[in-house]
């Protein structure tokens, strides 16, 4: 056995060991009723905080109504075991799992409902909406017959007594059930976070616009995150109901949601390990300091403020316990045993051959007006295969607007765009990205806290097929696709001499490399047309020269058509085969660099607008 395998086995058995230790401590009475009940509360809290971490940590949206999902799950499963399944004559051992899952599903349904406003609203507004939903859930439960109304639901079968005549045995079974459900949920959130779906969710947190432009269907993933978080909270609610045997809607109000949020924030938004530690500490500490009960919330709120002022990322930030490396090593280990080294090949398809000599992108009289103001009109652009074309014009001429029209960020009010012979009218940004137009941004929009490698992997998203479920299970399909893109992403970085930066956090890369990484990410979604928005902005002359070579290299290696916006005339004149000149939202000139240079209309446009640009044009004339 080598060192690595040893580490894996050690870690795997750590969980089992933890479990057995608790069981032994319980049977010997060291963990009495009181302590083991608190332990159950800790575990349920862990489910709540780790699931809240999906929306708040991974997706980056503040959710203030998480306890509402717990209430839904709790009431659903309690009603099921207490009324429905008991009437059908099910035993508790059978009805518990059914009711837990049902509770999770109903909560997930509501999570999805709440996710719908999330498609349109963000940040503060969404926070208020989730708060509102949480309160509505409470009010409605309080006024329904089946939930016991104001009196709440009582006499729900208790797990700590229901499994066996013997108290201890039943308590141990309760612990076993809650423990393994918690472990399963943590593992699921963990693996999901590592899958393409998890990366998609995180990329929305990092930069929603870039995520969409990279081909991530952001609305779908916001919904997914809300639904998953609600599902797990629902299960936690079911467990809670069968732990305490009594449900009262008032217990699931705003304060409860805030309490869970505090734990997530203190542990570190995005860190599951942090949530687990925070849950453990913040549930058990007040029990130990019962005498200080009055000060508990004062201390919580002070902690919250101090944490935000001095360590806004929480205790652990987004760091995780080394379980991850362990997990992946474990997979490799099993793969070796079962000979599952499959790699799904993810080639860059040469999609261009058939378009030899034909336009890959054409616009016909494209235009948009914002409330009467024509920001762009009569834009007719044509990009041939393997061509590098420049789009220049004075500031405010509408260059970026044209990019936004091409990528569906703005919906054109007139004209249409034809990509590879097919109109892409009515398609939304991520679909257009998947169809073959990708772009970079004037102000760099990287997924800043993800590694360079992961930035690129996000762009591979739409080329992978595996489902969220296989992401959670990390089955053969998932692993082989992941291996495939890992190889591809590293190859791509190598093209840009960035292979050594693969694991560097994107936000900490030097400026020039961030620009390159953004181009790299745009290429990863396998585009036919690459739109570069001021790629040389902020670069010094030697960096610009290097960039020129890179752009040519991209064209040769990836056979894409490139349309670039640039103010650096040296670069534009140096590499563009043709140039479009835009002024006041219209194309005023079009032609080869030398024709543009001598075009009097262009000179006038720049003269009228910007002295420096004019001199630049002359300099290169």
């Amino acid at each position: 056995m080598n060192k690595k395998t040893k580490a894996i086995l050690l870690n795997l058995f750590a969980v089992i060991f933890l479990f057995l230790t608790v069981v032994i401590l319980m049977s010997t009475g060291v963990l009495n009723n009181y302590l083991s009940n608190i332990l159950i509360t800790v575990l349920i809290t862990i489910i709540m905080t780790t699931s809240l971490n999906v929306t708040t940590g991974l997706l980056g949206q503040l959710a203030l109504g998480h306890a509402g999902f717990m209430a839904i799950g709790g009431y659903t499963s309690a009603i099921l075991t207490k009324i429905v399944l008991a009437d059908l004559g099910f035993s508790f051992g059978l009805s518990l799992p059914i009711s837990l899952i049902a509770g999770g599903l109903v909560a997930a349904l509501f999570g999805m409902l709440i996710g719908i406003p999330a498609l349109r609203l963000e940040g503060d507004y969404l926070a208020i909406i989730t708060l509102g939903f949480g309160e509505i859930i409470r009010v409605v439960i309080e006024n329904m017959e089946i939930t016991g109304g104001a009196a709440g639901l009582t006499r729900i079968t208790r797990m700590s007594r229901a499994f066996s005549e013997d108290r201890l045995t039943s308590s141990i079974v309760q612990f076993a059930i809650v423990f393994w459900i918690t472990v399963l949920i943590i593992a699921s959130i963990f693996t999901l976070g590592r899958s393409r779906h998890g990366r998609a969710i995180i990329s929305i947190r990092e930069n929603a616009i870039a995520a969409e432009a990279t081909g991530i269907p952001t609305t779908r993933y916001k919904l997914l995150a809300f639904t998953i978080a609600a599902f797990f909270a629902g299960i936690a609610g079911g467990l809670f109901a069968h732990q305490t045997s009594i449900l009262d809607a008032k217990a699931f109000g705003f304060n409860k949601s805030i309490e869970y949020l505090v734990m997530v924030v203190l542990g570190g938004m995005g860190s599951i390990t942090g949530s687990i530690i925070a849950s453990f500490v913040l549930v058990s500490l007040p029990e130990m300091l019962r005498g200080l009960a009055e000060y508990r919330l004062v201390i919580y709120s002070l902690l919250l403020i101090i944490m935000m002022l001095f360590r806004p990322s929480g205790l652990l930030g987004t760091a995780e316990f080394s379980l991850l490396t362990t997990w992946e090593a474990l997979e490799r280990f099993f793969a070796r045993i079962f000979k599952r080294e499959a790699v799904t090949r993810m080639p860059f398809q040469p999609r261009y051959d058939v378009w030899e000599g034909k336009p890959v992108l054409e616009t016909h009289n494209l235009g948009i007006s914002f409330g009467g103001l024509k920001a762009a009109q009569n834009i007719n652009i044509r990009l041939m295969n393997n061509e590098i074309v420049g789009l220049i014009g004075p500031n405010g001429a509408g260059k970026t607007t044209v990019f936004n029209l091409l990528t569906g960020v703005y919906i054109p009010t007139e004209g249409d765009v034809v990509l590879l012979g097919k109109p892409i009218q009515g398609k939304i940004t991520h679909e257009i990205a998947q169809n073959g137009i990708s772009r970079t941004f004037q102000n760099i929009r990287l997924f800043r806290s993800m590694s360079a490698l992961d930035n690129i992997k996000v762009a591979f998203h739409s080329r992978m097929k595996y489902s969220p479920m296989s992401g959670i299970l990390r089955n053969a399909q998932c692993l082989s696709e992941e291996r495939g893109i890992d190889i591809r992403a590293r190859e791509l970085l190598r093209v840009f001499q960035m292979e050594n930066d693969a694991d560097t956090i994107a936000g900490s890369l030097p400026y020039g490399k961030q620009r390159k990484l953004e181009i790299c990410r745009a290429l990863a979604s396998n585009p036919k047309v690459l739109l570069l928005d001021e790629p040389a902005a902020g670069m010094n002359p030697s960096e610009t020269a290097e960039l020129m070579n890179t752009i040519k290299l991209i064209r040769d290696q990836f056979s894409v058509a490139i349309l670039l916006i640039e103010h650096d005339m040296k670069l534009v004149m140096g590499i563009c085969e043709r140039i479009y000149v835009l002024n006041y939202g219209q194309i005023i000139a079009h032609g080869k660099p030398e024709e543009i240079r001598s075009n009097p209309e262009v000179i006038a446009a720049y003269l009228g607008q910007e002295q420096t640009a004019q001199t630049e044009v002359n300099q290169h004339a």
Partner: protein
Amino acid sequence: MKKRTVFSLLLAFVLLFSVSLPVMAEDTIKIAGIGVLSGDYAEYGLAVKEGVDLCVKQTNEKGGVLGKKVEILWEDTQGTAPNAINAYNKLLDEGVVGIVGAVLSGESKALAEMSADDGMPQITPSSTAYDVTTDRPNVFRTCFLDPFQGNAIAKYMSDQGIKKAAVLYDNATEYSKGLYDAFKARCDELGVEIVAAESAAYGDKDYKTQLTTIANAAPEAVFLPYYGADAAMILAQANEIGLDVKFYGADGIADIVDKVTDKALLTNVVYTDHFSTDADSELAKNFVSSFEAEYGKLPTISFSATGYDAALVLLSAIEAAGSTDKEAIVAAIKATNIDAVSGKITFDDHNDPIKSAFLLTFDDQGVKHYLTQVDP
């Protein structure tokens, strides 16, 4: 699995013996006090605590129970069910033989759920909701019930010649809803017409809309099954919109005096209480004077009296049972027939005390005055 179960069982037995031996050997009898001592409803829990502590102190001064000193261990629930369960588990491990508590109906139910499994004697001094004691032979109470109060008020109202009544209540609070249901049922029987029944959302402070609707229906009296703070707010707002009728309440508004600045408004209020400081029994007088001596104030919240009684019933039962055996204590409680501070206490089949309600009103200084007594 089976082997481990057997193993754990063995261990548990060993442990049980090792734990129970020192408990038997101790020279105090421990009882538990569980209830809300902090948070929104803390004043009710603290009133109970004062009554219970006084009873325990007096018992110890008289030599304790079974020749041992009584020790009361308090745990705060902050009014929530999970905390009540934790408190129970904790105190159980510390060897208590009986419980006084909990205070609010919700936490009492959670507690009863646990204690019923163990057959642990439990007496709540203040949970008036009907089903706290249902199917739980070990759970008793020393206060009367919501249905009884609702009945009593409806009866008294009808006796005063009121034919048209209105209700403002909170559908989302068990206490309020329970009282309303009983009140309505009795009014229907007595031929008192309920001209308006308006509910307000939990935590709401603006009752003017509801009061306007009520005023529009022109009732002769309004029933307010609320706690003191809310009722005080309602009185002020009713005054503002010019609704000038009699207001009736239940034990929850016993603490209204401190919440109202314009005490004259209180002269319109009549309510049912568990205890009156005007009560003329010897025990009650002694209680009031020793309470005043101990705490420097009158027991204005009647849960101090019912708390005293709950402790008294429990301690007398332990004495009567002659041991700290749970079953014996429960049987002794069931057989209780004592004169207590809030009246004579015996228990019916549902473990509720058969005792009278006091109807009280206020003068324009906010001093409570005894009106009459309603017997079950």
